[in-house]
């Protein structure tokens, strides 16, 4: 299964390099990838952009799906996802403050200010959640607080729209539609590096997640430190969701749909298997969504495509797993 998933990623990756509004011959793509030169100078940038975009899709999809599975198991809720804790909203708020909040000029994507603000926004939500979680030990209550925080930040963003001019509003709305495009190499390395770090350290969550399917009381009796686990969960999902949101916009559905699909497809319940499966499926789904965006001539926003793919998956798996998930 894992090998099949990896082949799917390889195939989608190749298609993402090959397909686009500008048709570049396969031979030229190979020439460019091996460092050669072709007749049209823009092609090397186009291939680089397609390459970057595919890598961003792979890492974003993997990060969102991993956040999703961690949150779903932790909150024992198949509808939990990175958006639920309000972390995505926190990142959005940070980005909104820069993009809409009267800096006076349109802010560009890739500008350091947006990145810093987005991460600050997400981290603020994180700290708020950590603070709240000191007093609230019930996972569902924490989830509801995260949801409320999401609504609140959305409302604040709506208020910020009042002061924004047309250009700023348009830029923010486009960011909100989600896109894997437009990351330059330095940003890409930073984003992928952080996500990679989070993926590697999520190994520490394998045992807690295995135990948490029984509920927190049982998990504790299996030797799991619930407090440490809670911090690990918030840190991992927070950082991953924030970095993806800042760079690619608040991307929906991947985080919720992929873990459910994994649960349906993979028979092993060990998260040593489920986490890699989630990463692979998340990456593949993100690549597929981006491929559809590109084939549509970039007329379909990414979030439209993820919803078109993700929502049916969620409905299907919910029906399929309805009897099987407590």
């Amino acid at each position: 299964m894992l090998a099949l998933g990896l082949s799917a990623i390889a195939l989608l990756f190749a298609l993402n390099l090959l397909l686009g509004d500008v048709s570049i011959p396969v031979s030229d793509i190979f020439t460019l990838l091996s460092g050669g030169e072709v007749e049209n100078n823009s092609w090397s940038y186009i291939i680089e952009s397609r390459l970057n975009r595919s890598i961003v899709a792979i890492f974003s999809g993997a990060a969102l799906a991993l956040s999703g599975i961690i949150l779903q198991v932790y909150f024992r809720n198949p509808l939990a996802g990175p958006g639920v804790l309000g972390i995505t909203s926190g990142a959005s708020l940070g980005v909104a403050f820069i993009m809409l909040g009267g800096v006076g000029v349109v802010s560009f994507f890739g500008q350091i200010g947006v990145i810093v603000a987005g991460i600050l926004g997400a981290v603020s939500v994180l700290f708020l959640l950590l603070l709240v979680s000191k007093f609230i030990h019930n996972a569902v209550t924490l989830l509801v607080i995260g949801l409320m925080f999401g609504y609140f930040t959305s409302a604040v963003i709506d208020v910020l729209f009042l002061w924004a001019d047309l250009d700023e509003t348009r830029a923010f709305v486009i960011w909100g539609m989600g896109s894997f495009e437009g990351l330059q190499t330095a940003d890409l390395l930073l984003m992928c590096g952080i996500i990679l770090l989070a993926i590697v350290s999520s190994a520490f969550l394998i045992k807690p997640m295995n135990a948490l399917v029984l509920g927190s009381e049982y998990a504790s009796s299996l030797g799991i430190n619930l407090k440490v686990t809670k911090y690990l969960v918030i840190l991992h999902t927070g950082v991953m969701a924030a970095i993806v949101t800042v760079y690619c916009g608040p991307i929906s559905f991947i985080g919720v749909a992929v873990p459910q699909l994994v649960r349906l497809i993979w028979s092993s319940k060990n998260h040593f298997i489920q986490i890699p499966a989630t990463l692979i499926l998340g990456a593949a789904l993100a690549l597929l969504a981006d491929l559809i965006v590109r084939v549509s001539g970039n007329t379909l926003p990414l979030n439209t495509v993820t919803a078109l793919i993700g929502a049916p998956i969620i409905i299907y798996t919910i029906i399929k797993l309805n009897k099987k998930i407590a």
Partner: protein
Amino acid sequence: MDLKIIPLTISVFILHACVQHQSPLESNQVHEISDTIKVEYAEGFEVNYTGNFIQIISHSIANNSAFADTLEFPTAKVVPDLVGENVLAGQIENIACQSSTHVAFLSTLKSIDLVAGLCGMEYVQNSEINTTLAENNVAEICAAEQVDMEVLQKINTDLFLIYPFETEGKAKYDAAGIRTFFIAEYLEQTALARLEWIKLFGLITGKSKEANVYFEKAESEYLSLIRATKQVDSKFILNLPYKESWFMPSANSMIVNLIEDAGLTYYYPSSGITENETRSTEAVWNDAMYADYWIIMASRPVDFSLADLLTEEPVYKEFLSVKKNQVIFCNTATSDYFVQGVVEPQIILKDILLATGQVSNHQPKYFSLLK
């Protein structure tokens, strides 16, 4: 039916009747006309002279979503029977504008004092106009792009000039007793056609003579500049992308026609669509290798330079226009392109001619070579 609702309904009707929506027409008032208007370029409005009325009709152009609106000014004393809902008698003393470009026309005709309300006050970059608007306590009638009906009703405007976006919008204003008129000068496909709307504003404000004078002067300057133009055999692309989408104005748009009047050729031939076309960013990158000029209208910091532009995307340094140092930039954050620019097409044209080396001795106002 619940009987309790009847007295309630009746009382609502009584209350409704008490609210006076519109002052009855005083039919003996006559609109003053200083000069006859002849429409030569504009396709979005026409003026008809009948026995007792001047009739102005504004309507959609070509294949745009259809709309039409009529305004009639009595030129002689009319019998009350003839007074229709489109008739506006007497001089207009109080105008509200949904677009800041309307203000540009009114300001040019020195009728800015008529403006009582404006939507999007912050888009006016011209400090002189801004000062006047502030001195006249002009009301901001919009909040977050939405017209605030209460503010609008409070200023008690004679005429509200609106976009023809939604026809139910007009009905909404009618219901509130606010007389409206569609202004769609931005749909015109040439700069002179757009400027010619000043004549319509001249009719409304009773300054058709001034409007004719202004238009003819600008027109002759514009036309003489075209005559001086050399065909430079250069292709141009426009603007900047938003992520993977590059909104490229239609080949039939006013700005493309204006630049083509300067002797340049648009890279994208007409596809029959009048709206902006969305192209993928990578496709424009590919095309930009062959486009001699890159003309950008965007909001950027003061002193925005070519080097700043190149940091936005590495591929830009490969653009033919960048290599030839032929990037022409209009900073919409610092120039009043969107408002004052509408009534100064001859200056915009001259800016382009200067930037393409076809004229000298000109101080650029909107567009200049990006260095």
